[in-house]
């Protein structure tokens, strides 16, 4: 992790959604603790993978970073500027530098606007006139993302899922952002199309030096795309590390269980990896378990796990920057990595 000042620095990020109800007067009776004390850093040009199962708060985190949602607590610093509770005016300069790519290719594009208008939209809104005009810039962007510039006057419904996702990417690049938050950008696509978009995002990151926060539930794609990965469970980061450390030397039981649950296409005759099967379902974020939130599904949970929430620290045996939040971290390397060694 580069020593210089991080592009994005998030400490103690928290977001609780109030639940209303009660009789006879409606008042707040509880809160969905979607994100509960998140710390993460993204350096210039670095790609951070955020992975976890549904309900773990990764999308909410994405919306908090781009300030589509205002955090309940914690601090977000972007390029040295505290934007946690910044007003619309204060956010304006920052807004053009942080862009977002959404999951559903069909719902994220305005069906009544032409592709040209969609891509040049951000420029209009922020009043930016690139030399040579917005149209030329928009056509250029379409070309960059692998679409034919003549599609400038076509409408979204005339494109396939994959192509629409490319239009979304082109729109995100319109203001040449320094940070792009991609929320499940490929999970709605077919495998072959998925690969095309992942390659596109990778080349863009390499060529344009854009920092990415890549949110997904597919561990294989996250590994392929991001240099560093953070694993989330029920609103908290349970483990974060460089790619190789995390996939080869996962210390947190949940990370280990996640990796073992992924069905691998490279069927090998050797016995499959140590199979860890979690029982039950993710508990409700309305009243999460005390202490370590994974304890209800962890096979080695003790009273200590219930009493004291483990801090996200570099436990003994971890590489630099490899943090794990567990009282009894897993030991040794996984089966697969041994085989590969």
């Amino acid at each position, binding site marked *: 992790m580069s020593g210089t000042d991080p592009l994005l620095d998030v400490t103690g990020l928290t977001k609780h959604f109030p639940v209303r109800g009660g009789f006879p007067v409606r008042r707040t009776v509880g809160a969905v603790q979607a994100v509960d004390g998140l710390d993460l850093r993204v350096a210039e040009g670095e790609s951070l993978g955020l992975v976890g199962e549904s309900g773990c708060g990764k999308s909410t985190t994405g919306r908090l970073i781009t300030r589509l949602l205002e955090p309940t607590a914690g601090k977000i610093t972007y390029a040295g500027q505290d934007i946690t509770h910044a007003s619309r005016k204060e956010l304006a300069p920052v807004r053009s530098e942080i862009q977002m790519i959404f999951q559903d290719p069909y719902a994220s594009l305005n069906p009544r606007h032409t592709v040209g208008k969609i891509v040049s939209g951000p420029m209009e809104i922020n009043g930016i006139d690139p030399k040579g005009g917005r149209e030329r810039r928009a056509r250029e962007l379409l070309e960059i993302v692998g679409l034919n510039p003549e599609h400038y006057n076509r409408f979204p419904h005339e494109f396939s899922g994959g192509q629409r996702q490319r239009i979304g990417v082109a729109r995100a690049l319109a203001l040449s952002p320094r940070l792009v938050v991609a929320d499940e950008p490929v999970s709605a696509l077919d495998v072959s199309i998925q*690969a095309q978009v992942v390659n596109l995002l990778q*080349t863009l990151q390499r060529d344009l030096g854009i920092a990415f926060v890549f949110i997904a539930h597919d561990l*294989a794609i996250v590994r392929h795309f991001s240099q560093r990965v953070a694993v989330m469970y029920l609103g908290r980061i349970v483990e974060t590390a460089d790619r190789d450390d995390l996939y080869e030397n996962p210390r947190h039981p949940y990370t280990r269980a996640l990796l073992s*649950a992924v069905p691998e296409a490279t069927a090998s005759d050797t016995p499959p990896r140590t199979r860890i099967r979690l029982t039950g379902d*993710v508990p409700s974020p309305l009243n999460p378990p005390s202490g370590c939130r994974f304890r209800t599904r962890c096979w080695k949970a003790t009273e200590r796990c219930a009493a004291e929430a483990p801090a996200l620290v570099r436990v003994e045996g971890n590489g630099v920057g490899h943090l794990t939040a567990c009282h009894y971290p897993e030991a040794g390397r996984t089966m697969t990595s041994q*085989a590969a060694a």
Partner: protein
Amino acid sequence: MNTPFLSVRDLRVAFSTEDGLVRAVDGLSFDLEQGSTLGIVGESGSGKSVTNLAILGLHDREHTDVDGEILLDGKDLLTATERELERLRGNTMSMIFQDALASLSPFHTVGRQIGETYRKHTGASRHEARARSVEMLRRVGIPQPDLRVDDYPHQFSGGMRQRAMIAMALVCDPELLIADEPTTALDVTVQAQIMDLLKDLQQEFGTAIVFVTHDLGVIANIADDVLVMYGGRCVERGTRNQVLRTPQHPYTWGLLGSMPSLDGPVDVPLSPIPGLPPSLLNPPSGCRFHPRCAFAEKVHGGRCATDSPPLEINGGGRGTACHLTAEQRREFFVDYATPQPN
């Protein structure tokens, strides 16, 4: 060789829409033995789900014409009357779906929906049906089944709803279970649980399973045999190891190449299949994959674009529909696929 439990011969399914005839399945044949699992893999629009509905005869007769042959235990389902099909559905053959929340009725309790199938086919009383439902819920691993039996589907979590649907499908101990992307909507940990459950149930009940998915990883985990579909046709078949380890068809190579793995090299970019899935309204001539196939020009005489390659099947049920010669396939496969460990 005794007759296979389920055999599909030259199945064709076409929909008449305003814009013309959509040939969703264009001549599909396969067999399935008792107790074994056939994995059908293909991307959206490949015709995999249409096949399932054809087997159960659930297509709307006015707007779809289905021909060919579907023999279940020797009986052709396509010529069966609606009444005969109703006796088979849910009893001899049943189906589970991708989105359990939408597939379970929001207006009836889970117990009632499971019991309903049981009562229809066995004439059991309401009381017996309820007991059976509780039993099935316990069997699929739902905690406190005697309480949850009276809950509504929206009160279940994602994983539990999927289990409830499986309980409903298996309540009459069917010989054939058709699973249409049952795990796609689930988180990976829950998906693993469901796949284990299906495998255990198969051992216990000896059910033949047709498992349809677009995820090769799931196929690798659950299927005995694999059938790769593209543009409404089967392009490659064989056992799981044959298809996944020594794929013969360029499309299968492309699928494998598009999937990142947990431990493969990272700096090498994925090798995706260029272009877009074929339109079923006016499909490409000849081999439907040829516009996206990197090796089409390698076949002399451009036969790929003119005549569609037949599915040659050798003794063991292994087959590929491609004009490339076996020699060319071996050679191209080696440099196409990134170095795969073992």
